[in-house]
């Protein structure tokens, strides 16, 4: 049959390639079935994004001139005259954003499924360094078009770096700015962006891939995952095709975004124009920008803010040595899961807030309210949700399989989250009214707000106490007194 001939031809071709290139040789260990799931490939997709950046970047490198007098005009030349120039620039920008977002998602997914625990602590540290390099790519690349927005934003960033404590600031500042002057700075940024950072990233990637090969993919943390432990797939062709499929989906997504949101080059940098706009960093640095805008960190206190940000980032790096217990499943480590959720929420809130308030200093009270409120809300909701989710596969009570019991448990879970949200809101408003009264004197409006919030807090506490006892978390005497209410809540239960 024709198909058989074609198959033989293809088979011979693949066989020839295989014997010459060693495609089917087990270069990397086979991949277990539970990890055939996009979440396990966020890191690989980050590398795919990096490769896209490499290809588009190298082509643009043929036309770009890293000199302040020609940077903008050469970038404009790419936009207007080069074949696919605007396409290259657009894809390069959006894939840069995708790479940063994918790296972040990869880190958070890893955090939630405990990849940083034994024996993969070093992989986590190397991964964090790769994350910093990725942010460095964004920082250095942002300057290159030499537009008003990019140069003024970068100048602020360099100012921040120079405000770090002394030995660090002079070393880092010399590395990225050189001996001063715009031309030296641009050339350093360009060299960092196209040579130094790529070499560092690839070296770190090689180290991480080697360690991945040694340790294998981290074990699953869900029941469904555990059932797919034994089956494995070879790297070539199965896993390669899967990765290519995901990469093609990423590519197609980037292309569609590029068409829907075309970019245009802003005006060229000049000191006069720069004075008319408010400098703002690119979105992935907005959370740092927002922290630095809190009034208590102004002026001489700036190094304190920078040290705080550095401590947060350093904390992330040494996480494997802080979170040392061996529990991996999400339900068994509620505190760390809650901290992770709070971290994501805070970064998102800070970034959005920074976007909305360019250049505006944030009062301390407001900062405490917003950030503290977010932390309380997210933290308590997460803890609440974790406590009330049924432990699948660990249900000792035969009633757990009864659908009406599950419905009741679901309702309780929702009610618990509502109670916690109400309580968090109450706490937030209470703190705000107290702070306002402390700063501007006692008045009726604030007093009534305080009263209302304390009342809401009381209701929430009572309600969540009831729910906690409802879930067998409490002492018998109280359970006995609310037995009648239990009957009302779930009439079908035995």
């Amino acid at each position, binding site marked *: 049959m024709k198909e058989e001939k074609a198959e033989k031809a293809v088979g011979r071709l693949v066989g020839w390639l295989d014997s010459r290139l060693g495609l089917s040789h087990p270069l990397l260990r086979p991949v277990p079935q539970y990890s055939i799931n996009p979440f396990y490939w966020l890191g690989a997709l980050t590398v795919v994004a990096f490769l896209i950046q490499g290809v588009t970047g190298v082509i643009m490198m043929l036309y770009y001139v890293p000199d302040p007098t020609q940077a903008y005009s050469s970038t404009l030349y790419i936009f207007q*005259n*080069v*074949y*696919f*120039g*605007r*396409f290259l620039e657009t894809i390069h920008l959006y894939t840069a954003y995708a790479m940063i977002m994918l790296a972040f998602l990869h880190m958070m997914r890893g955090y939630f499924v405990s990849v940083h625990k034994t024996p993969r602590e070093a992989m986590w540290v190397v991964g964090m360094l790769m994350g910093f390099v990725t942010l460095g790519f964004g920082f250095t690349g942002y300057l290159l078009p030499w537009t008003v927005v990019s140069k003024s934003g970068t100048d602020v960033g360099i100012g921040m770096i120079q405000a770090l404590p002394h030995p660090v600031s002079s070393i880092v500042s010399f590395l990225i700015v050189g001996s001063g002057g715009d031309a030296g700075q641009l050339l350093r940024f360009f060299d960092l962006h196209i040579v130094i950072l790529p070499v560092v990233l690839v070296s770190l990637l090689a180290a991480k891939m080697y360690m991945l090969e040694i340790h294998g993919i981290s074990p699953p943390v869900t029941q469904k995952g555990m059932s797919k432990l034994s089956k494995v797939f070879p790297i070539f062709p199965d896993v390669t*095709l*899967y990765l*290519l*499929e995901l990469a*093609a*989906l990423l*590519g*197609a997504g980037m*292309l*569609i975004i*590029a*068409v829907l949101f*075309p970019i245009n080059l802003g005006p060229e940098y000049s000191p006069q124009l720069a004075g008319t706009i408010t400098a703002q960093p690119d979105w992935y640095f907005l959370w740092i920008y927002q922290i630095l805008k809190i009034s208590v960190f102004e002026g001489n206190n700036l190094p304190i803010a920078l040290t705080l940000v550095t401590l947060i980032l350093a904390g992330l790096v040494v996480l494997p040595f802080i979170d040392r217990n061996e529990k991996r499943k999400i339900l068994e480590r509620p505190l760390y899961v809650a901290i992770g959720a709070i971290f994501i929420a805070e970064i998102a809130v800070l970034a959005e807030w920074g976007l909305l308030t360019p250049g505006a200093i944030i009062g301390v009270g407001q900062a405490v309210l917003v950030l503290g409120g977010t932390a309380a809300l997210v933290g308590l909701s997460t803890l609440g949700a974790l406590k009330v989710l049924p432990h699948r596969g660990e249900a000792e009570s035969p009633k757990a399989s009864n659908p009406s019991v599950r419905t009741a448990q679901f309702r309780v879970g929702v009610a618990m989250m509502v109670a916690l949200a109400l309580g968090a809101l109450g706490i937030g408003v209470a703190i705000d009214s107290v702070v306002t009264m402390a700063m501007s004197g006692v008045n009726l409006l604030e007093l009534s707000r305080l009263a209302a919030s304390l009342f809401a807090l009381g209701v929430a506490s009572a309600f969540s106490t009831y729910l906690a006892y409802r879930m067998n978390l409490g002492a018998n005497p109280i359970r006995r007194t609310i037995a009648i209410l239990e009957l009302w809540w779930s009439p079908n239960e035995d």
Partner: protein
Amino acid sequence: MRIERVLVPILILQALSVFLLWTLNSVSSAGQDVFTLFLAVDLLGFVLVIQFYRSAAWSSVQGKAWIVALGLAMIAILVSSLFVS
């Protein structure tokens, strides 16, 4: 066989897109948008074919839904390329 009826048109679509990609004039911004869309069609065609390769895909309902969704997406993108220029 049912599979060929789907795979062959996809491969033809891919081949057409590749041809267009190489022959399009791509300095004009409309030309570049059309290029971007056709490259997306090309890549989604590849994704569709891989879904068929992963045999679980065509036998399960979820897999079939993915395949239909991808096919519709490709058609939508092709149609939208007419409005770009």
